[in-house]
């Protein structure tokens, strides 16, 4: 059986997709379709989901730092009395949630207003553990700091464990630059998140 024709069709499709991704607003349109955003309102807690982890020198990655700073900003604006930092232990032994909490304390957040969750490895796992932490305190509504493309999946996972999660999306890849490399990176994020969302749907996590 000759594979030539199917390979040519696949290759031509890839070529068209590359040009559409790099030189048209396609990735931006797809990213907006995956993003869920609700207007900011006061909640019981601000939950900053794990993401990006810790670098080998013990500092937060750009992704993790961006989400942390966003969470701190929401706290400073008085939108919730409690900040929950999530993030597991990394391969080099650093715990993302603890480093985030340390940064928050250094920025003046009172230690009693900080909770950490360092056991969950997946979004669904994080949702279950954070729900257990917060429901003990009678909290049902949260502001969920998450990457823009993952906001639909994450808010669904939290809704499934009984929390009303208002996603506060943080762009991890700029959606406003418009340069080809940024657009390709955005399409990659969209592809990863769309696959993850599909996996969560099929596996019953949503």
């Amino acid at each position, binding site marked *: 059986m000759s594979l*030539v024709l199917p390979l040519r*069709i*696949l*290759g031509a499709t*890839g*070529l068209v997709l590359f040009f559409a991704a790099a030189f048209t607003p396609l990735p931006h349109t797809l990213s907006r379709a995956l993003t869920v955003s609700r207007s900011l309102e006061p909640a019981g807690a601000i939950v900053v989901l794990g993401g990006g982890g810790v670098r080998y020198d013990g500092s937060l990655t750009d992704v993790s730092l961006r989400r942390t700073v966003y969470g701190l900003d929401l706290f400073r604006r008085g939108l919730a009395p409690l900040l929950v930092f999530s993030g597991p232990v990394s391969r080099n032994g650093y715990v993302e949630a603890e480093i985030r909490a340390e940064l928050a304390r250094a920025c003046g957040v009172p230690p009693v207003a900080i909770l950490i969750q360092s056991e969950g*490895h997946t979004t669904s796992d994080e949702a279950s553990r954070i729900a257990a932490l917060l429901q003990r305190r009678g909290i049902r509504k949260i502001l969920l700091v998450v990457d823009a493309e993952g906001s639909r999946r994450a808010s669904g996972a939290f809704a499934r464990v009984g929390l009303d999660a208002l996603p506060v999306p943080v762009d991890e890849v700029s959606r406003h630059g418009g*340069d080809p490399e940024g657009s390709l990176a955005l399409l990659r994020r969209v592809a*990863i998140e769309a696959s993850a969302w599909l996996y969560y749907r099929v596996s019953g996590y949503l």
Partner: protein
Amino acid sequence: MKTASVILTVVTATSLGAYVLATRRLGLVPSSLRIATLRLTEILGTALLFCTINLAVGVATILALRFAAGWFLSVYFLNDLSLLVLSGLQALLFDSWRRTPGRDRAPVTRARSGADDLG
């Protein structure tokens, strides 16, 4: 869109330059460009196929380790540009191999059975 315009202008200009050089100096004929383009799509298709297979095998292995052995490995480990580059190299090598003359066409000989030996 400034970056995109600059990149597209540069690439278009060098492509036109290469076309002129190829047809006037290197003796290449314009009609064979179509065949070359088809070959490019074949190699790209092969690269995408390798990439898909690499991702599928990677995800399946990670999920199997999670559920069977209880080890947690993040699927995000596969989110690395090197996988795409390596898939491209696999495709180039596979394509070169496929086009290299000298396939093993040794005739298939029937193994002699024990009954034959016994005559």
